[in-house]
């Protein structure tokens, strides 16, 4: 109750960083409820219901959360995608809530219907080659063969896979956040893909500097700027620059 009042006051006062009607600044919430036991429902009503509806059934501003499952809520909150900072694609940033608050919200949202639970990722028996094959087939078209990310049109971006915990990667595949489709993988396949994504981060680069890992575009730049550029400079040193530099004809 107190939280609601303070939140509303901050919202109305304009002191907060509310933009486009989105919820209040994260830091405020974290400090507010530190000393109290976290009530998931209450937290949801203050922080999420503006867009997702008091009952989680959605509004004009945000989709219904029915059946999204704990996995989805956990993913969105852990990666800081929710609460949305501004309109447009939800991007990864610092989480707005503390661990206890996230736990409470996840439990509450998970109670909306029958969605996927937080997956258990176990890389012990993962097969790297299977992971590579699955990754190329399903993930590379958006995220790139090296996981560097890509623009997928309509202002959407498939993010780079260099950050994110193993659980978060698994959750993304299972819940299909935003424009990402949902995938139907077995647990073994999920482990294989997560294992491969982790491998991509530390993959050795035997050929030298990895100029982005996205192929011919940066390679072309380097060829012109470094390759031809250095040779042009050398040529200027070797040859003469103006007619007057060479001596007069005898």
């Amino acid at each position: 109750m107190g939280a609601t009042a303070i939140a509303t006051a901050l919202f109305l006062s304009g002191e907060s960083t509310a933009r486009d009607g989105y919820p209040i600044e994260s830091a405020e919430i974290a400090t507010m409820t530190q000393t109290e036991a976290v009530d998931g429902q209450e937290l949801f009503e203050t922080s999420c219901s503006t867009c997702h509806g008091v009952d989680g059934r959605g509004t004009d501003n945000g989709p219904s959360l029915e059946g999204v499952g704990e996995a989805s809520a956990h993913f969105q909150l852990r990666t800081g995608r929710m609460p949305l900072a501004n309109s447009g694609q939800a991007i990864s940033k610092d989480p707005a809530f503390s661990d206890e608050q996230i736990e409470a919200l996840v439990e509450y949202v998970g109670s909306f219907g029958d969605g996927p639970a937080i997956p258990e990722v176990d890389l012990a028996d993962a097969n790297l080659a299977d992971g590579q094959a699955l990754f190329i087939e399903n993930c590379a078209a958006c995220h790139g063969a090296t996981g560097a990310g890509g623009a997928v049109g309509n202002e959407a971006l498939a993010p780079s896979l260099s950050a994110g915990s193993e659980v978060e990667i698994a959750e993304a595949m299972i819940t299909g956040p935003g424009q990402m489709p949902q995938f139907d993988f077995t647990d073994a396949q999920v482990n294989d893909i997560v294992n491969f994504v982790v491998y991509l981060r530390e993959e050795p680069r035997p050929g030298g500097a990895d100029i982005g890992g996205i192929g011919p575009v940066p390679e072309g730049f380097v060829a012109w700027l470094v390759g031809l550029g250095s040779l042009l400079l050398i040529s200027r040193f070797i040859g003469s620059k103006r007619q007057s530099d060479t001596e007069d004809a005898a």
Partner: protein
Amino acid sequence: MRPVRWVYASFVVSMLGSLGLVVYYLIGESAQVEGILLGLALGGMGVGVIGWATRLMDVPTVVEEHESLESDDSAVAQTEDMVGQDAVTRRTMLLRLATGATATLGAALAIPALSLGPRPGQSLEETKWTPGARIVDRFGSPQRPDDIPLDGIKTVFPSGFEGEADSQTVVIKIEPELLDLPEGREEWAPEGCVAFSKICTHAGCPVGLYRAEAKQLLCPCHQSTFDVTTGCTPVFGPAARALPQLPMEVDEAGFLVALSDFQEPVGPSFWNMETE
């Protein structure tokens, strides 16, 4: 002489680089070290040679006069006379026959090129999809509508032809009420599952990018965008033709099967393709 020392030194550097490369080749594996050593070997010598040429050679500028390039008229006339001798040029009938024989010989020698490949025949108009073919994933597992998650996408093939390039198909499940397929396709999408050829109708790349919220397929090669809800009609980019839709139904065992082959050619357009 100060300016000269670096020229001598660079040859020495080059030799060190070359020797280093020989040694390193036997003991090491790093491409970076190999590249640097080779760079020193070549670069040292290059710097030395250029330094020699620019700093240590006292070569004067030379002027070289030259005569006109073209030969004088009498030389040209004599050559023309030589080439155009009566023995050759007056025999017009023979010249014509010789030309004809050369041309036909050229055609005869060129004709084996037709063995380089088969005739297209119907292969661009058909795929391996047949009526009743089970829809399977890459590993051969048949698919039920439930195996496709809502807002999910899967690459599938006809049973027995897993991995077959011309038959590659994507199955997408969306809410049935969002579908606005062209007339006559009402029975093609059981439980909101729609199937389309994965081969882009522009340049043939697999259309692997699915924007789940927008319900649009994007081809990563040239960014052709297809709207799934209206039957993958192109909405952006250079593709001009919708992705052909595979008619599907659910058989008695509950698996997805094809009703028939695609009703128009898959892949990039060609000059004499039949479209409905």
